[in-house]
């Protein structure tokens, strides 16, 4: 009954069929077939991108209504290479599942995929997406950490479409009243500033700080930020776990200690983005780590004009954010790859990312847009966000990201809720990560 979750098909036959079908159809696809069938040398021989015609763009549900107008513009300019927008569910897990399903059946229904930045390695390692020619995209004008999220083993497998970085939201009114002139740069400063604020009568019942500490992807983000901000790593550049270190310990200790001494409220371990935002907006928090999306939303709440953003604090100086955002990748099994490549270029152009910033408040990948005076006037957080992204560290770039994030969540959560000491949690986490990366 419920045993039908998998979609096992004889994969080799489908590929053979598809290739022969393409041969019969006139050979447009031969190169595409053979290049994606080459199992080993994705590193050396770049696939050639041929074929022009209609393609599809696959992304999560567009709640802002900003994607279709851009596609319409493309379709007007390229009447013979029309792009159809396929909208997947809002839930990222469901998006990933559908994309994997499409890849597992080697279907050509999906051409250009909008991938969450943490999926790049997995999709690249399975060869579900093509390695892209670096020279055809203006990567040098993009922020370096953002470009890194699109790479796997040095090869470019996607083009950054949008980015995202964590920032520290703080209550300007309370800090000023308490005599704190600058937002905190280190964790100690954060705690000191908070102590001063708490002496104010109106801040008596407030808590200090929160992030996203529920047991879900947000915890991985916050844990990685704490570890990176203390000089540690979760996995090194090659994807090897290296989390059982004194530096990482200091990072986790900040979170665990804060949860224990009440800097983080008790219910902090149930917070996702929205819970934290509600708490901050209703005046329960002095500091909150959150994404830029909340900047505009908070302006419509009771704390309008009473908050600002700063880069995340760290152990001895500014901290390191994790990166969010989406990259555009090209499905290995798609047709009309020449069109697809042009479309990716069009979609990630400076003009379009600026539109996305305005309409969907998606952080652009281009450095110059963060210095644009008119944009800054509209989005005062841009300079802080740029700083945040420049100092950011991508989350572990590993093939088995699902297992890695599950392990991080399990052990970090156990430490946060007091089931384990931070030392034990990191030791267990290191062992668990070794196991899942070795798979």
């Amino acid at each position, binding site marked *: *009954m419920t045993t039908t979750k*998998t979609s096992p098909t004889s994969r080799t036959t489908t590929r053979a069929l598809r290739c022969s079908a393409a041969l019969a159809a006139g050979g447009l696809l031969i190169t595409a077939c053979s290049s994606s069938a080459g199992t080993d040398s994705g590193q050396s021989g770049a696939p050639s991108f041929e074929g022009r015609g209609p393609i599809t763009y696959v992304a999560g549900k567009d709640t802002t209504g900003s994607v279709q107008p851009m596609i319409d513009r493309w379709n007007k300019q390229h009447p013979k290479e029309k792009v159809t927008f396929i909208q997947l569910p809002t839930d990222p897990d469901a998006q990933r599942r559908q994309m994997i399903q499409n890849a597992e059946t080697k279907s050509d229904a999906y051409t250009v995929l909008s991938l969450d930045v943490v999926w790049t390695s997995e999709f690249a390692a*399975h060869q579900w997406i093509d390695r892209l020619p670096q020279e055809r995209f203006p990567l040098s004008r993009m922020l370096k950490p953002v470009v890194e999220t699109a790479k796997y083993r040095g090869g470019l497998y996607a083009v950054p479409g949008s980015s995202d970085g964590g920032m520290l939201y703080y209550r300007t009114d309370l800090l000023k009243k308490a005599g704190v002139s600058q937002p905190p740069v280190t964790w100690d400063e954060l705690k000191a500033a908070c102590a001063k604020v708490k002496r104010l009568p109106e801040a008596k019942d407030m808590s200090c700080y929160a992030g996203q500490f*529920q047991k879900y992807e947000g915890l991985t983000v916050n844990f990685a930020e704490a570890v990176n901000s203390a000089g540690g790593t979760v996995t090194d550049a090659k994807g090897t776990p290296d989390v059982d270190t004194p530096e990482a310990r200091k990072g986790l200790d900040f979170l665990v200690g804060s949860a224990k001494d009440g800097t983080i409220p008790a219910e902090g*371990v*149930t917070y996702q983005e929205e819970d934290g935002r509600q708490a901050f907006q209703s005046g329960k928090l002095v500091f909150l780590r959150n994404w830029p999306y909340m900047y505009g939303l908070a302006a419509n709440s009771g704390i309008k004009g009473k908050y600002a953003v700063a880069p995340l604090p760290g152990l001895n100086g500014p901290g390191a954010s994790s990166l969010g955002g989406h990259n555009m990748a090209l499905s290995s099994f798609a047709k009309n790859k020449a069109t697809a490549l042009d479309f990716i270029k069009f979609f990630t152009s400076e003009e379009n990312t600026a539109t996305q910033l305005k309409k969907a408040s998606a952080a652009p990948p281009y450095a110059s847009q963060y210095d644009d005076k008119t944009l800054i006037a509209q989005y005062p957080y841009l300079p802080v966000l740029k700083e945040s992204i420049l100092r950011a560290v991508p989350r572990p770039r590993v*093939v088995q990201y699902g297992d890695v994030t599950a392990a991080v969540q399990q052990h970090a959560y156990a430490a946060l809720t007091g089931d384990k000491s931070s030392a034990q949690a990191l030791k267990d986490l290191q062992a668990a990560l070794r196991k899942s990366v070795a798979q």
Partner: protein
Amino acid sequence: MTKTEIPPGVDAGPSREPVTRRRLAGKPARATAGSGRLAALLVSPTLLVLSIVVIYPTLMALKESLYGPKGLDPATGFISDTEPFVALKNYADIFGAAGERFWNAFWNTTFFTVVTVGLETVIGVAMALIMHKAFRGRGFVRAGILIPWAVPTAISGLLWRWIFNSDGVANALIGHQILWTTEGFHAKVAVIVAEVWKTAPFIGLLVLAGLQVIPKEVYEAARLDGARPPRQFWHITLPLVKPALLVAVLFRCMDALRMFDLPYILVGAQKHSVETLSMLAQNEASNVRFGPASAYAVLLFLYVFLIALAFVRLLGADLVGEGAARRRKKAGRRRMEVTA
């Protein structure tokens, strides 16, 4: 008076006997071979659909469960194209390294099933008794009781997540902060409360249907004999409603064993306190390990199957309809007599 023995088959209606007799009398024995072929022909589309949507996927899942996850080639950084054949290793693993998570999910599933179905049965029967009573505004009460069942599980999961939020209604009511959606026994309690709220009306509904076919005369006789309501309930209502109740409980058991969306949405994925077998299989599949995922799903399938079998065999749950089964038996006996 409590010996109010009900003639067997009262619930099936009194018109059963004549119908059977009429049909048996009018059916010529010679037609059996031809009608058999016709029956096969008529049933074949159903069988075809069943084999496409049930048997084929089940067999594919069985086959898939014999394959392991694809390996990563450390030299190229690419995942191999084929899945290695590992025979029964995925099944054997539940007794070894990966077993901890499986058994945790297994016990969670069993615990949820036993507790929720137990509570639902008690509450559902109570609901049915209330709905059965004639009183003013009965329509409203019925509708009110049935609404939770009409709400999609995913939605009720969201709804209860609001209630169990750290500053939600549940904490306001008990005046004490419990972080329901964190790990721990309280997360189990949250799932049980939401599940019982949602599905007790289902049992109530089926039991109500069972109650409505109990003839009034039986109660009148009992009353004349001086039986008080509790006695009437234990000795008349419960035995007579048992067939309907057993089917309801069986359906609920099978549903509860496959529980997925409620804990997934209410408490969250990756939460060991509430992870069920379905969630485990889904999690493995979403990490592109279809082999182990299929193995877990197959084990769950067997578990559900065994429970259903136990119900039918041990408790005599009447899935086909008692009347129909008996009629078939009788008809078979008759045919044997004829052919002999």
